[in-house]
């Protein structure tokens, strides 16, 4: 368990770092897909199997493909220099490191309460389904509408206007 956690964590952070540091946008996209898989692994470790599947389906299956399409459609010049940093590279890096340090400090300094009655092996899918379709039914439907609106909006924005 410990080894698997460190493995996935290492992979996740390595892929993510590779994504933001790479100068090649195609490489970035591929590394990002890898990092999404690693996140799915972490979800499995956290016993959120259904969410892991969703992660793979939505992120890897849909979002990653969309991003790759985007890369393809907006290509210009050499791919090797398609993903350069801007003038805030150093300031951004410094801010990110400091922010990370601050977060880590506050995470370590916080004492979280003990877990309340751990239930192992329960079927989370049924629970998720029940929660989504009863307690959060309105929000769930709203999300569905939001997605529809997003699709229509994307079509309108993206279509060729002459």
């Amino acid at each position, binding site marked *: 368990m410990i080894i698997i956690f460190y493995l996935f964590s290492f992979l996740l952070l390595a892929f993510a770092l590779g994504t933001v540091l790479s100068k090649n946008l195609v490489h970035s996209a591929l590394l990002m897909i890898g990092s999404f898989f690693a996140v799915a692994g972490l979800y499995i470790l956290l016993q959120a199997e259904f969410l892991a599947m969703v992660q793979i389906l939505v992120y890897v299956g849909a979002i990653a493909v969309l991003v790759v399409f985007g890369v393809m459609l907006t290509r210009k010049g050499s791919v090797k220099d398609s993903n350069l940093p*801007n003038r*805030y590279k150093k*300031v*951004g890096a410094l*801010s*990110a490191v*400091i*922010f990370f340090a*601050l*977060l880590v*400090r*506050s995470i370590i*300094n916080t004492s979280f309460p003990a877990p309340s009655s751990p239930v192992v092996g329960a079927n989370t899918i049924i629970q998720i389904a029940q929660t989504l379709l009863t307690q959060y039914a309105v929000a769930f439907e709203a999300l569905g509408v939001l997605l529809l609106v997003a699709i229509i909006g994307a079509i309108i924005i993206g279509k060729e206007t002459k």
Partner: protein
Amino acid sequence: MVIEQFGWLIPVFPLVAFLLIVGVTYRFKLLSAIVATFFAGLSLALSVLIMVQKVINPVTTEKFINWLSISTPTQTLLNIQLGYLMDPLAAVMSFIVTLVATLVLLYSIGYMKGDEGFSRYFAYISLFTFSMLGLVISNNYFQTFFFWELVGLCSYLLIGFWFFKPEAADASKKAFITNRWADFGFLVGIIGLFTVFGTFNFGQLATQIPQYQNALILLGLGLLVFLGPVGKSAQFPFHVWLPDAMEGPTPISALIHAATMVAAGIYLVARGYALFYSVENVMQVIAYVGGFTALFAATIALVQKDIKRILAFSTLSQLGYMMMALGVGSMTSGMFHLTTHAFFKALLFLGAGSIIHAVHNQDIFKMGGLAKKMPISSWTFVIGSLALCGIFPLAGFWSKDEILTVTLQHHFVGLFVLGTLVAFLTAFYMFRLIFIALFGQKRSDHHAHESPWTMTLPLIILAVFSIFAGLVNTPWFYQWTGFSFSTLVYFHEPEIPVIHWSIAGLSTVAALLGIFTAWMIYARRLISADMLATKMSFLHRVLSNKYYIDELYAWLFKYVMLGLGKVLDFVDHVVIDGLFDGTAGAIRATGVRLRLFQTGRLQQYALLIFVAVAILVLWGVR
């Protein structure tokens, strides 16, 4: 009694006429004239009925509604009444106004024939009559002021009736602006009256003022309110607009000079007599302003060449007479002279209009020999002049005699001498006019002819009034009927008319002397007018230029007013604007620098948010 309940209808009729002309009959010229004359006639009939009622039973009828009332539980902050007050004074005044207005309207049908603005003219006159009658029956200062301004507006419209003539447009503006100056003081005075006494109502003021102790405040209020009549009745130094008002159609001059505009000032002094009477100094100011104006205008009239201007200065002079009478303490004689003067001055102006209509010229030195060509106009004109000069037994004799008597009775010896001198001057300039314009040889190539009946009929009616109107204030009339003008219109105590033969004789002699001098110079030419003019060239020049008052005002305006304006302009544009522009400039400069923070670079914003959150977290987990 019943008829008095409808007194408020007197001003309503002309208003109806005005609305009808504007709204319905504007395109039908003759119909407009008939509507205006008919409704004015209705008002006249009603006025006559009410006046008869007042003669039989001289009581005061007052009706009003509270039009606008603002009050707290403890005091009244503002109370404006809308009402009408019908006492003998108002009855006499509305009779004069409606009579003159009706005759002027009738006369105008002939005079204005073929004018482009025929309907507009009649609409204006109806509105003018409405305003004046509204003023006459007002029961409070506020309503009076309202109609006062309406009268001013109408005079502006009518003087500038031929607005395409630059002189007419200028004259109308001059009249309006001069009156605005005076009305400002009037308004301040009215507001002051309300502040002190808490009412605009004439009757309530009349009971409260005599009990009021602070003489200084009364003096100030009296002088301020008196400014209004000074402007409207064209007393010195606000007289400048009246001669220029001659640019309007001549019947308008008749209306303004006899019944409406200038009479309003005299009427207001009589109406608010309680206020003026309470302070001796105000009365003296009124008396001396009037006396000075009388002499001042009479001297100017001596050398004028324009027939209407001579009459205009004559009006100024006579208004001065009335003011003087009111000022020395006799409301009766002032109002009586206003009444008689209304008849013969309307007659003179309408006669002059008839002459101008025939000759197409206003210069008396281009007329001459008119008496044979247009006998009715000429002889009625002579009757009017005799009445004006105060020749026995015409109307002016009685009223002028009355004024001179009260002046002496109240121990204003200086003003009495002055008044007699003015009587001499009046007779002189009127008969100078008559001898030059009506008799003698034709002085230019004119083809004068008598005017149509619509013009001569009013002349005849007015001539009759000019002859007989004065008799209503004679002892014989009083003995015969049991009343007279002075038992109707009075302040505090009715007077029984008496004749002081010595004073009457003196003024008649003065007038006859004036006529004789004029005859010597202009009819028999025993004395050369030109020689007199050259001998006293300085005096002649000063008089011809009306004492340079217009020039003085122009100079004052150019250097004092505009100079003051420049100073204020400097304060406004440099000091105040500088302050605000400076503030605005500072803010703008700050903005110019501040807006550089908005770079439009999305990622800079993101970075700033990021750093800001970092700082907040740092702050929070310290």
